[in-house]
């Protein structure tokens, strides 16, 4: 009961600033770009084969990795700014058992991340569906595939937000934690693939491609476990860091 109250307080924090609205505007822009690509984009030969099949359209709309990156930024800003503004002090005064407070915060941020990613995926699907009539192709993605896309995006949103929240709690500085998120998701994976070719199957872009049903480098279960590890490691690091440190 107490923990649920803490989660509710954390959700209240997230919904009483402008930050979610800023991310929603970004999602609208991404959906508009996808629609513009459908309307104006062509392949090298001038055709529109990139939307010629259900699989092609599903691939275009797959939002998993972008959702993870976006919500990782959302999560890390939401948590790191708590230290910058000092609002973590009333949090720990209300819940002096810090792991419980941090788990409530990570839960709230993950739920918000999942919601944002789901909204983003819905907007993209709607934008593509609205743009397709301007081409020679209809909307060919099945209901089952759409469900998989939505589920994958919601998962990506939760996972990304959790990863960001963990890094935010470890680093406690908005600039530093945003930089770290970009390094972890954008810079380190390609470098790792350069060093170990097999690593390509375990980086977030590949894993969400599998989870979204676009590719099949590894099994779905292996992809789910691997992507969970990407979030749980920084999440656990955040809990441990907060447990040990003084709040100054």
């Amino acid at each position: 009961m107490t923990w649920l109250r803490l989660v509710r307080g954390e959700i209240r924090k997230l919904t009483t600033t402008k930050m979610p609205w800023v991310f929603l505007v970004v999602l609208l822009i991404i959906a508009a770009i996808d629609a513009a690509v459908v309307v104006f984009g062509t392949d090298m030969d001038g055709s529109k084969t990139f939307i010629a099949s259900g699989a092609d359209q599903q691939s275009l709309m797959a939002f998993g990795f972008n959702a993870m990156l976006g919500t990782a930024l959302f999560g890390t800003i939401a948590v790191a700014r708590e230290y910058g503004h000092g609002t973590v002090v009333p949090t720990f005064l209300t819940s002096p058992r810090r792991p419980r407070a941090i788990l409530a915060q990570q839960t709230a941020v993950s739920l918000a991340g999942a919601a944002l990613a789901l909204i983003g995926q819905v907007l993209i699907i709607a934008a593509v569906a609205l743009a397709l009539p301007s081409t020679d192709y209809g909307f060919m993605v099945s209901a089952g595939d759409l469900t998989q896309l939505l589920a994958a995006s919601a998962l990506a949103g939760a996972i990304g937000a959790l990863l960001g929240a963990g890094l935010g709690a470890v680093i406690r500085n908005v600039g530093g934690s945003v930089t770290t998120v970009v390094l972890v998701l954008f810079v380190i994976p390609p470098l790792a693939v350069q060093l170990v070719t097999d690593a390509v199957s375990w980086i977030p872009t590949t894993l969400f491609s599998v989870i979204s049903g676009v590719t099949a480098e590894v099994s779905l279960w292996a992809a789910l476990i691997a992507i969970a590890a990407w979030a749980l490691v920084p999440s656990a690091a955040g809990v441990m860091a907060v447990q040990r440190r003084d709040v100054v």
Partner: protein
Amino acid sequence: MTKIDASHALEIEHVTKRYGHDVVLDDLTFTVQPGRVTGFLGPNGAGKSTTMKILLDLARADRGHATIGGTRYREMEDPARTVGVVLEPNAFHPGRSGRNHLRVLTDAAGIPTDRIDQMLELVGLAQAADRHVGGYSLGMRQRLGLAAALLGDPPVLVLDEPGNGLDPQGIRWLRDLLRGRAAAGGTVFVSSHLLTEVEHLADDVVVVSRGRLVATGELSTLQQAGTSVRTAEPGRLTRLLRNAGATVHTGTEGDLIVRGIEIAEIGDSACAAGIALHALIPQAGSLEELFLDWTSNNNTPIYGADTGDMATERLAVPL
């Protein structure tokens, strides 16, 4: 207040805190009693805020421990209804309204939301409740912090410089509020650098300097704890008394103001040294004078009388 009883004393016991090689608190021990307002004084960097953070489990002591009603803060089941805290006037998200800041706290602590409007009204922020905190003045942020501290109607208040930024009416209101809480049996522990305000507000004081306790006890007793001495050999007597552990400075009428040792000991020491005394008179001092004496180089703790447990371990030195 929900629960008020004698069990809400604050106990700081042998607390030592280091940051790197710097000793911020050095074996600090004192008690804050319920039913009284206790002023917590010390120069900048004396360790007041660190002491409060250790009491509230926001910082960990390297040695010793602090309890509220015999319980560590981190072990409290319902801290928001037990302890109200004001620590930093800027611990708010500037883009969140004052009302929403309080909503976050009531949600997290399970406090009825009707307390929000009651507290906003109490602190005089009802008209500004829906404005972003970023647009608040320092005084308004202090009032919001006080509203947050009082949300759970706690029997214990721990307030770090709550008067900062308040206008004279606000200071008066705060004084009445805190005195009312103490009169109802609450424990009020308030740090301040406004000595005249503490003089009006506090029943007891705890004074720290460089992380060490330098004085604690009932303020009125401590204020009486000085002696005015007249002698033809002030320089010699000053050296003698300082060697005996007293603080000595020259008063406005050329007399010596002596604190830290008993009046009889002054007379005996002077007699033994063959120094003639022309007057030996108990002397009350202002809190400012006392504070400057306490926080000078003399590190011998001074304990005032009649404060219950506060003076039980190392008995009062009647001055």
